[in-house]
């Protein structure tokens, strides 16, 4: 893992910016506007979830029993740890330790792989048991037990919310892979780390959404 380049990479500030700092700030502002749209997109699902949860608490309690809170906890730990390594990759870029930037990016990427592996174990289990959203639902739940009638609604929320979140993890992994390629070329250092910062913000938001999804889906009483 060599980052030694014969010619030092130098980022050229785009000509329409006054300074490198103006470019950095504009990039970040743009990314935050994007994050605001993300919050509102997931927010719509959360609002729907809260309203249905209030309308049929037994259904949501019964539905969450089908989820394995241990796998959910494991994924929470994986994502929070990956957020730490993402933040550290920026920290090491700021103090100019390029090898450590790479190590932390690799760890972050493989945490994303780990998250998706756990998620796919959960999904294949649910698909096998017929615990599917809406009309696809065909699990032989014991008739008569409380809340079972509306279980397909719970699993609609489960699959849409975790599915949208999982696709964000995949996109984040793609972006981190791109960062790894650039970090190998020695692009990031104290003078320039805007892509690290922006992808980092996106990755932390994905972590943030999972922080709410985990108790809402796995731990309803």
């Amino acid at each position: 893992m060599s980052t030694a380049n014969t010619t030092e990479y130098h980022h050229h500030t785009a000509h329409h910016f006054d300074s490198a700092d103006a470019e950095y700030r504009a990039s970040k502002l743009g990314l935050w506007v994007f994050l605001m749209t993300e919050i509102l997109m997931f927010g719509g699902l959360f609002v729907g979830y809260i309203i249905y949860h209030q309308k049929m608490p037994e259904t949501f309690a019964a539905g969450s029993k089908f989820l394995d809170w241990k796998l959910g906890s494991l994924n929470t730990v994986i994502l929070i740890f990956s957020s730490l390594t993402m933040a550290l990759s920026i920290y090491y870029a700021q103090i100019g330790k390029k090898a450590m930037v790479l190590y932390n990016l690799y760890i972050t990427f493989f945490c994303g792989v780990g998250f998706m592996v756990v998620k796919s174990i959960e999904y294949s289990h649910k698909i096998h048991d017929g615990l599917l959203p809406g009309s696809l639902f065909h699990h032989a739940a014991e008739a008569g037990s409380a809340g079972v009638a509306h279980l397909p609604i719970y699993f609609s929320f489960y699959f849409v919310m975790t599915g949208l979140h999982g696709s964000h993890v995949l996109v984040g992994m793609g972006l981190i892979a791109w960062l790894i390629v650039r970090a190998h070329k020695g692009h990031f250092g104290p003078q320039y780390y805007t892509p690290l910062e922006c992808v980092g913000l996106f990755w932390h938001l994905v972590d943030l959404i999972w922080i709410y999804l985990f108790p809402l889906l796995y731990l309803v009483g």
Partner: protein
Amino acid sequence: MSGPNEHHIVPLKTFLGVFATLMFLTVMTVVVAQFHFGAWNTVVAMAIASLKAFFVLAYFMHLKYDDKVFLVGFLLSIFFLIVMYFFSVLDISTRPVLNGIL
């Protein structure tokens, strides 16, 4: 105008402390869920999640140190989320029940 090299660098110790706090709060989330407070379970779970969100936003996403414009933007999106929630609940809770669930 300051260059990018003059950005605030959060010390390593802070990041590790935040990580430890987040791990502790994750354990708390799972432990608290074993108790049955009825409707309060969701409230407690959301309170802990929001505390975790605070640490992620303030330190990992640098909102504590950054230009306040990012904080204002974030709070605006949360405000509009509350507006959406408020009017949705107002609508659904004041509908006459005809049939079905909503």
